[in-house]
C-alpha cells in the first residue's frame, strides 16, 4: 500500500519537476497533461465581447478536447470558417441594460444566428446562454437569482438529453458536476414554453441536489429544436483538466480530478467528425 503511495508521489514530483524546468510560456501552453486524439482540422470559434471573461478558458478547453481554437471578435463580420462556436461567459458590455441584451446586436451575432439556423453547433455558457436567449436562438430568459446572491459553487447536474451536438458523450440521465457562478441564472419562461421544452425533451441539464437559483423546473440548460444550439448556466470550460476540475459527485474534499466539462467539447468534435463522414 505504502509503495503504491510512494510511487504515485514520486511520479507526481517528476511531472512537477518537468513542468517547472520549462519556461512559463511552455507551462501555460502545456496541454499535454491530458491530451486527446487530435482533430486539428476541426475549428471551434470562441467569441470575445468587451467584458467577456472566460474566452481564454473556453479556447483552452477546445484545445484540450483535441480541436483547434479560433478567436472571434464581436465586431468580426465573418466566422473565419469555423465548424462550431462557443459563446463564453463573463459580463459582456458590463451586463448593461440586461445580461446579453447589447451583445445580441454585435455584428458577429448576425452571422452566428444564421450559422446556428443552418445547423452549426453553438454552445452558450452562462453569459453566452443569456446572449443566445436574447438572440432568440434559445427560448426563455435568465432572471436574477431568487435569493439575490451571486453563486459560486460546484453544481451537480443531470444530463436529460444526450442527443445534442454538445452532449453525445454523456450517458442518458448521467449525473455530472460542473462549476456554477452567476448572479442572474434563474431560467424563466411562460408555462407554454416550459411545457413545450419538457414535452420535446429540450431540457438538456437539470440541477440536482437542490435548486441554486429558483430556476423553473430546476432547468440548468436547454437546446433548440434541432439540438445543435445548447445553452447552460454552469461552466464546462472550468472542468477540463485533472487537478483543476471539480470534486467527485457528493465529495466534500479531495483532488479536483473530475473533468466532466471536457466531454462537452469532445461531444461536438465527435458530432462534426461523424457529420463529415456521412
Amino acid at each position, binding site marked *: 500500500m505504502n509503495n503504491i503511495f510512494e510511487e504515485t508521489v514520486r511520479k507526481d514530483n517528476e511531472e512537477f519537476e518537468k513542468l517547472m524546468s520549462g519556461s512559463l510560456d511552455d507551462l501555460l501552453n502545456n496541454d499535454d497533461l491530458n491530451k486527446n486524439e487530435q482533430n486539428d482540422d476541426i475549428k471551434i470559434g470562441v467569441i470575445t465581447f468587451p467584458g467577456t471573461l472566460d474566452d481564454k478558458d473556453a479556447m483552452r478547453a477546445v484545445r484540450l478536447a483535441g480541436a483547434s481554437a479560433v478567436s472571434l471578435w464581436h465586431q468580426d463580420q465573418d466566422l473565419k470558417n469555423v465548424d462550431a462556436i462557443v459563446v463564453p461567459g463573463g459580463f459582456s458590455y458590463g451586463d448593461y441594460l440586461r445580461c446579453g441584451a447589447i451583445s445580441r446586436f454585435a455584428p458577429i451575432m448576425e452571422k452566428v444566428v444564421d450559422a446556428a439556423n443552418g445547423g452549426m453547433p453553438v454552445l452558450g455558457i452562462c453569459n453566452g446562454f443569456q446572449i443566445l436567449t436574447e438572440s432568440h436562438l434559445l427560448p*426563455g430568459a435568465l432572471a436574477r437569482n431568487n435569493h439575490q446572491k451571486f453563486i459560486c459553487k460546484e453544481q451537480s447536474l443531470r444530463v436529460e438529453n444526450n442527443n445534442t451536438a454538445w452532449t453525445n458523450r454523456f450517458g442518458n440521465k448521467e449525473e455530472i458536476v460542473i462549476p456554477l457562478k452567476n448572479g442572474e441564472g434563474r431560467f424563466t419562461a411562460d408555462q407554454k414554453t416550459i411545457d413545450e421544452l419538457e414535452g420535446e425533451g429540450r431540457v438538456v441539464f437539470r440541477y440536482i441536489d437542490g435548486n441554486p437559483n429558483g430556476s423553473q423546473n430546476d432547468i440548468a440548460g436547454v437546446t433548440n429544436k434541432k439540438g445543435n444550439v445548447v445553452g447552460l448556466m454552469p461552466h464546462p470550460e472550468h472542468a477540463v483538466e485533472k487537478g483543476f476540475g471539480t470534486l467527485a459527485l457528493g465529495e466534500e474534499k479531495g483532488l479536483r480530478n473530475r473533468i466532466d466539462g471536457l466531454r462537452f467539447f469532445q461531444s461536438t468534435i465527435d458530432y462534426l467528425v461523424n457529420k463529415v463522414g456521412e
Partner: protein
Amino acid sequence: MNKIVIEVMPKVEILDPQGKAILGALKRMGFNNFTEARQGKRFELTVDGEVTDEVLKAAHEAADKLLSNPVIEAVVNVSKMD
C-alpha cells in the same frame, strides 16, 4: 430638446427579488405602509426636433426590440416628456 420617456417593469407574474429586498429594507426602516415593492427601469431618449407620431413609433419599436425583454418584462409607458 425634446425627450421621450420609456418605462419598463418586470412582468407581474415574474418574481422580482430586487423588489423583495427593497420591501424588506423599507420594513426594517419603519416604513410599514407599503405591502409590495417592484423595481423597473426608466429610459430617456432625446430627439433634436419635435416628438412626432413617427418618432414615438420608433421609440415603441426600440422599447420592444432592445430596451425590454418580453419574456420577463413589460413596457408600461412610452410618452413625450413634459
